[in-house]
């Protein structure tokens, strides 16, 4: 069959045409998403080769190594920081999203400002934080010059610095989905609530907040997931003592050349992300069935 005849036959059948349109994406995902995860899973149950790489010996050793107070501590710290980052982004981002959704004239400009940091590389932005936070940085220089402190504050290489970096890096990912859900909110719902007796905070609690929950959840996932896997902020702003799981994983692949252990860590991290997401998706599906 000639190529032209094949195309004609595919176009003639809606099902074949659909499959043909979906095929490139599916193949792409299989090759570059499913396959790497399978490889990772495979490596995580193998042994480290003498000169790096892996040796095809089936073992649960990597996962046993993982159950070590050191690694579990780092994993716990990573989760706690990511949760803290998500909470901070939510507290800071919700009012901003609310203000942008309410702004009539400046809305586009404000949205542009929220997205603006994405125009610069994440790495560069984290470096910029160093210039802000270090002993001779902008903040300390200003505080010293104003005579508020007489010795530079230790800001860099602290948990605070890491958290600041994480929040700074991921805040827009919280603002945008919340903004989207608030922007769609019909003003007449608020008016209806008001005429039914709901004062300011009650209107927020009973109407605005529940209706913006999809945005809150999406924003939380969008900040929580990348901050779990991040390693740049903790590396640049936290120094050696504030390692996150991402740093350990990176280390296994680049310095320690222990691919199996790195794979096992990555896999556990993935599960940590996957479980809350799946729980949320299930909940949302049942919710949607209710509202349809």
């Amino acid at each position, binding site marked *: 069959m000639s190529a032209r005849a094949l195309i004609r036959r595919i176009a003639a059948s809606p099902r074949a045409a659909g499959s043909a349109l979906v095929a490139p994406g599916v193949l792409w995902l299989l090759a570059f998403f499913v396959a790497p995860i399978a490889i990772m899973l495979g490596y995580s149950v193998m042994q480290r080769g003498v000169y790096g790489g892996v040796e095809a010996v089936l073992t649960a050793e990597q996962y046993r190594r993982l159950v070590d107070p050191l690694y579990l501590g780092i994993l716990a710290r990573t989760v706690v920081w990511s949760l803290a980052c998500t909470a901070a982004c939510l507290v800071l981002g919700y009012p901003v999203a609310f203000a942008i959704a309410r702004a009539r004239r400046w809305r586009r400009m404000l949205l542009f400002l929220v997205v603006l940091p994405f125009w610069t590389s994440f790495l560069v932005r984290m470096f910029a934080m160093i210039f802000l936070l270090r002993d001779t940085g902008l903040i300390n220089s200003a505080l010293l010059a104003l005579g508020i402190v007489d010795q530079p504050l230790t800001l860099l290489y602290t948990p605070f610095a890491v958290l600041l970096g994480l929040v700074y890096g991921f805040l827009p990912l919280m603002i945008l989905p919340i903004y989207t859900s608030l922007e769609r909110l019909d003003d007449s*719902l608020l008016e*209806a609530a008001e005429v*039914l*007796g709901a004062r300011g905070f009650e209107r927020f609690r*009973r109407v605005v907040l529940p209706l913006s929950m999809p945005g809150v959840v999406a924003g939380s996932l969008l900040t929580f997931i990348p901050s779990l896997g991040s390693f740049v902020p903790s590396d640049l702003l936290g120094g050696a003592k504030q390692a996150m799981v991402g740093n350990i994983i990176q280390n296994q692949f680049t310095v320690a050349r222990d691919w199996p252990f790195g794979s096992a860590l990555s896999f556990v991290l993935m599960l940590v992300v996957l479980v809350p997401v799946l729980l949320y998706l299930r909940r949302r599906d049942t919710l949607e069935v209710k*509202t349809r």
Partner: protein
Amino acid sequence: MSKPARTSPAVELVGVTKSFGDTRAVDAVSLAVEPGEFFSLLGPSGCGKTTTLRLIAGFETPDPDGGEVRIDGRVVNALRPYDRGVGMVFQSYALFPHLNVFRNVAFGLEQHRVPKPEIPERVHRAMDLVRLEPDRFGSRMPAQLSGGQRQRVALARALVLEPRILLLDEPLGALDLKLRKEMQLELKALNRSLGITFVYVTHDQEEALVMSDRIAVMSEAKVAQLGSPAEVYEDPRTAFVATFIGESNLVSGRAVESTADGWVVERGPNRYRVPRHPAIVAGATVDLAIRPEWMDLFRPGEVPAEENGLPGVVHDVIYLGETIHILADLDGGGRLKVAVRNEGQLAKPVPWRRADPVVVAWLPEDCQVLEPE
């Protein structure tokens, strides 16, 4: 001070003005709605009717020195909507999409801290009022309801608080014709049985005529005319009211002669009689509005002596079912529409064909003299 007398209007606007930037949305509007009345604000979009309703609800406040909004005789300019004792039904229904029907209706009760055990009973009563079976609909989400059902939920949600005044902003606009007519009668019946004052915004003149005790016809931020449906339909005072409510032929001429029972008005080579009216000044233009159904057609020379007549030719005959419209082009310009009852075009067709010479006639008392706008 004694408590407000029973006679004070349910809602009263006194010289109320509201501007948005440079535009006056409501311009020195004064009106009084009697307790229990079904009162409509009628006008085309942008006439200020919705803003007027929102001023009563409290979503808008009059300009500084922009007059007073009173409810039951009390000035409420500074009160928030929840302190005004009004209920409102919104154009888009504004049902809370995340709450089921029961919780939508219960919302106001919860906000007013009605004791929990009382809530189900009151919700059921409100749903019964609007003929929504509580057991069947209570647990449904708004998205699962038809337009008419949502409308009923919105009504129940407003009525459950037993407001003295119910404000309705084009509540039937999104419904199909048949349902709309049904709901019109139902709303009217609710107004009568509950004794609640209804203030109803609509752009649909027929709807306003069907339901209202009185209508305020609005145009360009002002009240153009206020009266009963019969008054605004049969005695429109301006060309706007005459053409917005139903159809009207506008005929103008010059007052040339005062007679014992009125004026003689000249229009080109033709003359006709107009009853006495304070707006008519000798030598000045006289504008008349005449309903198509109050006009008649005659062959030239057959017009009865007591009728006025303007000669022309038939432009078109339009079949509408219940009525037939005959458009006549007058000699010297202008087109009039005459409505005749359809008595069966198959058996008894109207005797008019295109280009027939014709005289459009009416009785002098069947015209309305319009005031200049």
